[in-house]
């Protein structure tokens, strides 16, 4: 147990200064506002600038394209980027997929890919979900059929956020429909510039763009396969566990309790904004903070936020999302109708931050796995409850 403020030595202080300078130089502190108006979780100049400094893979050695930072340095970097509210969806996904690429990519492409990732020129998006399957990833129907040294891939993938800025899609495909569903899957790094790849934008409530990717007989050389044929589930597992906040992690207190912190940072900003609003006199001369019921309602959000931030693993994912949804609704109620104005409308409160949060929050219960998936994981893995029994006789294992 340790919650001390970490003493920074001169190296870390310098690093922090350098990150802030980079942010200022790229006016990256304004990306957040652009993002809320309708962004796509990515800014190429800034991403490449990170790459030039080795900050995409900060703990890798400099000669591999990293910055040779220790874990503390990497934490400082991440906190500074978060503090500056840098949109980091594609950065996060690229980092999530990276270990699977390191471990499973063929020798033919690995070094080039890793170097590209470090530089910022190679980015990954996820190709898991399909129109029919929902959160049952193992039901993937996208077909990959071997044809000599190539695979011919057809199917449709949803929620391939960032695909328009990425070079590869971390793709789950069915290679053997005759085997039990998890044993007939193979992972690929699908080059997104291949013929037959069609990326269609999908706008989400938060303003962020995601995509549908249609694959129509896309020919992919075998060297873009990750891991063994029909062993895709094992390859997928690493990124999936990381995304689900499962796994041992490091014990040095340099990780957040759960990946839910991504949502909760937004809730915190909106709560602080609402508290700021409540502390000032409105046009009618009253101070909302003088009303105990308002104070109590803000206190409720503060308690839920603190609890969610402390909740670990998959539990933290669920609490993070649900605290964000409930908190957003409460803050909107407190602000009243002006709190729902578009940030650019006259009289909008707090630049529309709460209005945006209210829309954004609705994605958090699905994004990176539905809360139902996580409840299933907790019921089975933490509580040891029996798996749901389905008619095929195959009980569903939520620990996926």
């Amino acid at each position, binding site marked *: 147990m340790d919650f001390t403020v970490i003493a920074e030595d001169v190296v870390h202080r310098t690093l922090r200064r350098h990150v802030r300078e980079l942010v200022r130089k790229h006016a990256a502190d304004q990306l957040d506002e652009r993002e809320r108006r309708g962004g796509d979780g990515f800014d190429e100049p800034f991403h490449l600038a990170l790459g030039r400094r080795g900050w995409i893979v900060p703990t890798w050695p400099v000669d591999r394209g990293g910055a040779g930072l220790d874990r503390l340095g990497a934490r400082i970097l991440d906190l500074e980027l978060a503090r500056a509210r840098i949109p980091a969806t594609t950065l996060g996904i690229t980092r999530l997929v990276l270990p699977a690429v390191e471990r499973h990519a063929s020798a033919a492409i690995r070094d080039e890919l890793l170097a590209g990732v470090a530089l910022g020129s190679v980015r990954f998006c996820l190709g898991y*979900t399909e129109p*029919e*399957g*929902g*959160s*049952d990833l193992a*039901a993937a129907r996208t077909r990959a059929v071997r044809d000599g040294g190539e695979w011919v891939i057809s199917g449709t993938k*949803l*929620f391939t956020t960032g695909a328009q800025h990425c070079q590869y899609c971390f793709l789950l495909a069915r290679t053997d429909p005759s085997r039990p569903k998890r044993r007939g899957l193979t992972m690929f790094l699908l080059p997104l510039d291949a013929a037959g790849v069609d990326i269609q934008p*999908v*706008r*989400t*409530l*938060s303003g962020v763009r*995601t995509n549908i990717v249609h694959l129509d007989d896309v020919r992919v050389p075998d060297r873009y396969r990750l891991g063994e044929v029909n062993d895709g589930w094992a390859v997928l597992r690493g990124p999936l566990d990381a995304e689900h906040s499962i796994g041992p992690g490091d014990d040095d207190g340099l990780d957040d309790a759960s990946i839910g912190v991504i949502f909760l940072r937004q809730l915190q900003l909106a709560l602080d904004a609402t508290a700021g609003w409540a502390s000032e006199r409105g*046009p*009618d001369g009253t101070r909302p903070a003088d009303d105990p*019921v308002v104070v109590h*309602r803000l206190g409720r959000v503060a308690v839920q936020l603190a609890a969610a931030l402390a909740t670990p693993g998959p539990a933290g994912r669920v609490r993070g999302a649900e605290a964000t*949804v409930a908190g957003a*609704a409460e803050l*909107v*109620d*407190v602000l*009243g*109708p*002006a*709190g*729902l*104005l*578009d940030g*650019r*409308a*006259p*009289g909008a409160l707090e630049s529309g931050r709460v*209005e945006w949060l*209210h*829309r954004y929050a*609705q*994605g958090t*219960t*699905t*994004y990176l796995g*539905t*809360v*139902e998936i996580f*409840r*299933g994981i907790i019921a089975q893995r933490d509580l040891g409850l029996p798996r*749901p029994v*389905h*008619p*095929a006789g*195959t009980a*569903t294992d939520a620990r996926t």
Partner: protein
Amino acid sequence: MDTSELRRQDYTLDGDQVVLRDLFAQFFARECPMDVVRAAEPTGHDPQLWRATAELGAMSMALPAEAGGDGAGIVEVALLAEQLGRRIAPVPLVEHVVASRLLAAGGGDDPIATLLADASRGRTVLGLGLERYDVPQLVSSGAVAGAVVGHRAGAVVVSTGGPQPHAANQAGLPSAWRDLGAEPCVEVPVASTAVLVDRARRELKVLTAAALVGLTEGALALAVSFVQTRRTQGVPLGSLQGVSFPLADVAIGVAGARHLCRRAAWFLDHEPEAEPDLPGIAFAYAAEVATHGVTVALHAHGGLGFAVESDVSRYFLRAKGWTLAAGDPGRDVLAAGEALLAKAARPDREDRRWTSR
């Protein structure tokens, strides 16, 4: 609500009301498919639908006969509001009807009579601005309302400054900031401003609650239809309790909120002083049910619900905005507590407990 009181507890619609409800349901189903809703999003108002609604008689039905109306009550308008909500129709009808009824209390002289006649035919949109008169207020139909009915010390007034620039908002409402005090304005001769404004507030709450009931049911219907047709893990998605139970909870909320609205509307029409806190209670509960309901319905669609193209996302976006246009439901919860405490302190309290003596 006293559970020992000998009142009828009849929530059913009579034959005429069923006909009316079905008429409204068919009207909005026909005139307001989702592409109409989407097409109206930039401004939040569909003038063609507005005219059709006027032709239906929706704007005059609840006016007194002297004002050219049919003398229907809030019960009937609530049936209309529910069906309007069911299709999230982009017309600011609830505010308009409440404002018209408030104007109608001013009697039959010009210029009020002309304004009211225009309003009852939909030629003018009436907004409602019951917040403090001396500061600009966000009027939910202020971007399309030719006139806004408000009040200042001791007087009901109509500000006729005409539509103001649209204040874009999440809910797709034709809102605008209106500074009623700065607009040209006419005083409406009424007997008691306080009573009428209070009455208008209560009507607004009940009708908004009814619209929210319809809205929530509409979102629920989309979710039910989605999970009925999808499969997961080899079984229908909607057969999983993790999916069906939350939807059942929404249905439970809708059933109760609908009844509560009907009850509140009936009391407004028949015994407005018997349960004065009921409109606020119905509104607070309908708001809670809507907030929860649209979130559950959207989530039931998985990631697809989060797409701007999804119909359910349109319902989600309106739930909060429609609510807050009628006030913070937290205030009504507080008022319900105050009413309870006022009763607790009443001298007849012991009388209600006669059996314990």
